[in-house]
């Protein structure tokens, strides 16, 4: 009896312990998910001998995980391999990205792999290779492609669906990969090369950065580059990088790269910032670049090259003749100013957010940066400071010359600012953009420093659009999660740039970079005219700063012969003609042009144009140019059904930098579990009772 009692007591204590652990567990569900994963896994699927649960939390570092048949466990399998072949000709890169999906399980699976591409990438080809067979993907309207994929998936056919989630984020769905089978999917895209400060650069992104958080409605900073192609500050990449060793990530997702560089001229240097490369000169102006070793896909690959100082390019024209007309791409370097030239006279309006959310270090750093910027103004500049929270206030009634007395008044005003209250951005915009008095001798720059979370974006955009006049709006996002969609679009509408300050430590350096650039605006009010009627992107040329070229894509029925660029170079009218009779023949320009037109159209949509009409236009262009877009997807379906069993879904997670924490809501209750444990205790009670009676 005694031993029996002991056993029962031990059992009861054990059960209580388990149930308590479950309660604790569910309470912490949101904060300690990794711990939960392990626990629930062990508890639920103890009958399934699965591998390496402790690696599960590293899903952000890239892993191909597959679900088991009973759907209660998972297996980690070696991730896909990626091979990148790139050919650079002039200002265009064509990339062929091959991803191999291997199913290491004994089940039929479906895989999903989300991956980034350059924000201006025009994706136009998809091929799927199964063994010896190759299936070429077709462009279809998004909904239709999705339906075709679903049908193929449930019919047991192999299929691949390439979808653009946002301009720089794509997902590839692959259906019905057999046990031990490998499917190879090849994606081809085209992108424009960036040219800035005499440096050509090409970026291949490998991580989805924090700024492309799927939960944000639109992607952010680099989107402005997409439209301008080049005009602005280079997006900062420091956030894109993840130190794999620090996170203890297994080196799973490998990437091989092979680049053929047809620059067309002798190069001074070819270098990669982060990855060791091997460069071979094939012929004059032709180079081959390879990675010294396969890289782990957690840091963007950036290749830069520069022409010999004796033959720095100052203009370029590439064209492509098609049945419909002529597509082209033009690059023109404006005259460079020597350092001796005096900076432009500016009228700078600083707007600083002093809402409650800025409290603490954000506020301190913003104040420091502002004080620095004011002291950096030259005496010929004029300036004003606007501080806003629930209401907006200016220091001076109107812009004042940046003399010592005024600077010190402003500094005192900044010193006493405190962070509290709401974020009424509109009132600040009204103060800074409304009632502008035209000043022909000064360039008006509005520097907007905020961490702002705003909900009335559309209203703010339309205000900026209407009231910008001659001003330029530069947004600076401070804090861990500024509304980067708003900031980017506001800067774009304000013909300025968006600077994102990721951590408070970097406020000072980032602001110095920005203000350094603002001091030297080269060309403003730019317009380009061709002697033929052209459809040209970007439609509105942005201002140029030191070292930046004009770059545009055009389509014209007749080949244009010359281009006239005019604008204001330091208050003086400036114009330049570029003869276009000669051009380098190049394919793929139509694709790039279409990609830019689509980017332009989607921006129109956010400016308040009728979405249905624009969606139709995007669809038509994307279908015509065989492009993946927000309205179209590429789909490849194998006509022969192959899956013998029903395939289960799995997802391949891309390597994501730390800090990107998003989680779908917790949607289960412990109700059934509690009921079951309750039942167990009831039976236990009955058993003990029965036993006891019997004994007596």
């Amino acid at each position, binding site marked *: 009896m005694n031993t029996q009692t002991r056993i029962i007591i031990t059992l009861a204590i054990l059960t*209580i312990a388990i149930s308590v652990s479950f309660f604790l567990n569910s309470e912490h*569900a949101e904060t300690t998910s990794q711990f939960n994963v392990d626990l629930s896994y062990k508890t639920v699927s103890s009958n399934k001998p699965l591998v390496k649960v402790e690696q599960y939390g590293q899903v952000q570092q890239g892993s191909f995980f597959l679900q088991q048949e009973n*759907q209660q466990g998972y297996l980690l399998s070696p991730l896909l391999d990626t091979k990148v072949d790139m050919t650079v000709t002039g200002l265009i890169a064509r990339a062929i990205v091959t991803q191999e999906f291997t199913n290491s399980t004994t089940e039929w699976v479906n895989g999903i792999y989300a991956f980034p591409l350059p924000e201006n990438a025009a994706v136009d080809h998809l091929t799927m290779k199964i063994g010896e067979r190759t299936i070429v993907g077709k462009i279809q309207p998004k*909904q239709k492609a999705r339906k075709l994929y679903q049908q193929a998936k449930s019919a047991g056919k192999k299929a691949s669906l390439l979808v653009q*989630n946002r301009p720089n984020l794509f997902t590839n769905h692959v259906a019905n990969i057999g046990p031990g089978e490998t499917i190879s999917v090849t994606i081809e895209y085209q992108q424009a090369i960036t040219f800035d400060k005499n440096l050509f650069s090409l970026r291949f992104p490998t991580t989805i950065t924090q700024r492309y958080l799927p*939960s944000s409605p639109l992607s952010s900073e680099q989107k402005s580059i997409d439209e301008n192609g080049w005009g602005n500050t280079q997006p900062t990449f420091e956030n894109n990088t993840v130190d794999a060793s620090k996170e203890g990530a297994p080196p799973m997702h490998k990437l091989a790269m092979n680049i053929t560089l047809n620059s067309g001229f002798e190069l001074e240097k070819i270098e990669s910032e982060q990855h060791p490369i091997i460069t071979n000169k094939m012929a004059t102006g032709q180079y081959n670049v390879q990675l010294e070793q396969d890289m782990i896909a957690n840091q963007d690959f950036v290749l830069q090259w520069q022409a010999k100082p004796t033959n720095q390019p100052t203009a370029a024209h590439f064209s492509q003749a098609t049945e419909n007309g002529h597509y082209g791409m033009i690059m023109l370097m404006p005259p460079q100013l020597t350092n001796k030239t005096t900076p432009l006279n500016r009228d700078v309006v600083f707007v600083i957010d002093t809402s409650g959310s800025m409290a603490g270090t954000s506020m301190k750093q913003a104040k420091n940066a502002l004080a620095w910027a004011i002291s950096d103004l030259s005496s010929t500049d004029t300036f004003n400071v606007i501080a806003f929270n629930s209401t907006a206030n200016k220091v001076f009634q109107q812009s004042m010359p940046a003399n010592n007395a005024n600077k010190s008044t402003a500094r005192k005003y900044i010193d006493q600012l405190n962070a509290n209250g709401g974020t009424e951005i509109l009132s600040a915009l009204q103060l800074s953009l409304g009632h502008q008095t035209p000043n022909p001798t000064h360039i008006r720059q509005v520097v907007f420093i905020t961490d702002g979370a705003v909900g009335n974006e559309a209203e703010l955009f339309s205000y900026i659009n209407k009231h910008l006049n001659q001003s330029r709006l530069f947004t600076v996002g401070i804090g861990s999660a500024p509304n980067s969609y708003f900031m980017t679009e506001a800067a774009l509408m304000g013909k300025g740039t968006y600077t994102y300050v990721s951590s408070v430590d970097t406020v000072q350096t980032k602001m110095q970079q920005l203000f350094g650039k603002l001091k030297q605006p080269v060309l403003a009010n730019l317009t380009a005219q061709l002697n033929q009627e052209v459809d040209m992107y970007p439609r509105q040329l942005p201002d140029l700063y030191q070292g930046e070229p004009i770059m545009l894509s055009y389509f014209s029925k007749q080949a244009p012969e010359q281009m006239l660029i005019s604008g204001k170079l330091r208050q003086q009218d400036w114009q330049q003609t570029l003869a276009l009779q000669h051009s380098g023949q190049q394919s793929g320009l139509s694709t790039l042009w279409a990609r830019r037109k689509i980017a332009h159209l989607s921006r129109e949509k956010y400016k308040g144009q009728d979405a249905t009409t624009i969606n139709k236009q995007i669809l038509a262009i994307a279908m015509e140019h065989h492009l993946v877009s927000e309205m179209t997807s590429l789909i490849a379906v194998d006509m022969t059904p192959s899956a013998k069993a029903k395939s289960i879904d799995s997802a391949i*997670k891309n390597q994501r930098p730390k800090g990107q924490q998003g989680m779908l809501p917790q949607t289960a209750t*412990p109700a059934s579990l509690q009921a079951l444990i309750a039942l167990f205790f009831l039976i236990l009670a009955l058993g003990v009772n029965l036993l006891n009676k019997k004994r007596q």
Partner: protein
Amino acid sequence: MKSLTVNKPKAIVITCCFISALLFGSSMYIHAKAIVAQWLIENAWTATLSTGKQQPPWSWADTYPVAKISLKSHSYYLLAGITGRTLAFGPGHMSSTPLPGKAGNTVIAGHRDTHFAQLEQLTFEDNLTVETLKGQFTYQIIDISIVHEKDMSVTASTSNDTLTLITCYPFDSLSPDTQWRYVIQATLQKRDNNQSGV
């Protein structure tokens, strides 16, 4: 000595019964909350429909009904927000996503054990309807998938009007902690605007 051997099992029986009752109670409470709350929310929704104003279902509630969703034979009142507290009373609407009637991807989450247990039965043939202040919206299911809880891509904004329903997966699992989500995505088929002009 004898009295001890008799009492020990009795104590165990009583303890076991007590724990059992406690757990049953707790389990029933979860279901009861889910059912009773929907009655109260119904009243609040009726009030919202007639006044056009947000109406918390009970005075201390930190949420309010935003829509009514019909899945096959059942319909539930949607609450604003997807916090654990909200989901106990009804399916919740993720506030960062638009409500039906505004362009984009409407994301709705519900408990797999209570309101959204029915998602398992939904097939591509089924239609979903959502009634909001703006009118009635009918959706056709276009995708059913199982995703990881960290896969936020299903909540991403879409160019077509989309409805995304999320619940925990697997449905019959006992553990309240699963990293899988069952996701149904549907696309807008029909829109009947509210004629009353509220």
